[in-house]
């Protein structure tokens, strides 16, 4: 279970954002993508998702080009973008039920447990727009282990999180990689992960 990027090139208008990016991340590994603002971290992640079309290069998952069967690839992928991907008018519990339910059946207990783990259990019945930005991010993180996805693509997952939130993130990533999952994380601060299967690549 490996994700491989081969010679990715992508332009946004005039800017040559991705210039021949190549890497490979195996099961149990977490790749941190660092770089200054505007260096293309978000673009890279979206290209890995198959959302942004590449001018050149390809992304492979389990040895096969993702473009060959995009829905199957998406079925194994959990993406967390800058936005939380959650509805402000729904409660935390409802959000998780709908977000995960599109992918797989999930029980009420699993949702409660995930919210408790993320430290937002008290907020489970409150509409998301009434929570703080940090709490919303925690709910978004709570979604990740429930998705049953082998590959995690996370864009600045630690934004708006306090120290406890950052350690929660580190724990989640650690558990994911220990169980054999793959993660690519874009961040401009280095993450402290418990496992030592961690690599880093920097975008100029």
């Amino acid at each position, binding site marked *: 279970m490996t994700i491989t990027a081969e010679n990715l090139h992508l*332009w*946004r*208008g*005039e800017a040559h954002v991705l210039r021949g990016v190549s890497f490979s991340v195996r099961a149990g590994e977490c790749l941190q993508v660092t770089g200054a603002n505007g260096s293309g971290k978000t673009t890279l992640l979206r290209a890995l998702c198959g959302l942004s*079309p590449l001018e050149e290069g390809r992304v492979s998952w389990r040895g096969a080009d993702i473009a060959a069967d995009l829905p199957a690839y998406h079925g194994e992928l959990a993406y967390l973008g800058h936005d939380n991907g959650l509805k402000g008018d729904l409660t935390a519990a409802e959000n998780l039920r709908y977000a995960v339910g599109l992918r797989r059946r999930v029980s009420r207990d699993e949702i409660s447990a995930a919210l408790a783990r993320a430290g937002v259990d008290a907020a489970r019945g409150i509409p998301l727009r009434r929570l703080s930005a940090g709490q919303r991010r925690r709910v978004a993180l709570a979604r990740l282990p429930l998705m049953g996805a082998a590959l995690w693509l996370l864009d600045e997952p630690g934004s708006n999180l306090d120290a406890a939130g950052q350690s929660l993130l580190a724990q989640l990533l650690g558990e994911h990689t220990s169980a054999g999952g793959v993660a690519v994380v874009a961040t401009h601060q280095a993450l402290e992960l418990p496992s030592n299967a961690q690599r880093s690549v920097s975008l100029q």
Partner: protein
Amino acid sequence: MAWVWFHKFGSPPHFYRLATRLTPWFGWPALLLGLAGLIGGLGLAPPDYQQGDGFRIIYVHAPAAWLSLMVYTVMALSAAVGLIWRMNVAHAVAASCAPIGASFTALALVTGMLWGRPMWGTYWEWDPRLTSELLLLFLYLGYMGLRNAIDDTARADRASAVLAIVGVVNVPIIHYSVIWWNSLHQAPSVMKFGQPTMPASMLVPLLLMLAGFTLYFVALLLIRARGEVLRRERNARWIDEAVAGAKS
């Protein structure tokens, strides 16, 4: 073999050279055919027994109307090619078609209105063909408006390609529905003539004008598409060589 040709055509420098070379081959014959058609239509063809000399505007109106539809189809086809095969040149061709097609449509509308004035007494009479042309003009304007509103060229290409494809499917439906709507009122259709069939002296100049307009469109398209390709590829290396070649 045809596949190789197809992909070569899609390469910007190749297309640029091809377009440069082909333009005079379309431009000059267009001029000649147009002149021949005009002389035949305005001078040599006999006056219509019902409309007198007023019908002669058909020599500009009919080719313009026919081309307004043909250009939309060409635009939609090249947009589809660009979308499916991800060919930048095809998108450039589609983008170049739009203003040309809109101009032909406007020309058809204006000449239609000028024709209507002596025939109906008013400039506008909701004739089905003219109404269809008006809606076609809106479709062109919508396409150009969408292109204009999206900043990223590649994204604008793809979005407007979807719009063009949806539009081209709709054009015959819109046309038919307008004819259907108009048939209820039994309004006199001025676009028909006194005679049941057109004599050769009237028909031949019309066909010449049609051919001339079509060739003119191709020549114009090649010129515009060249410019469009140049604009899109302005940072590429082959530009310097091509421009240097043109200067020498």
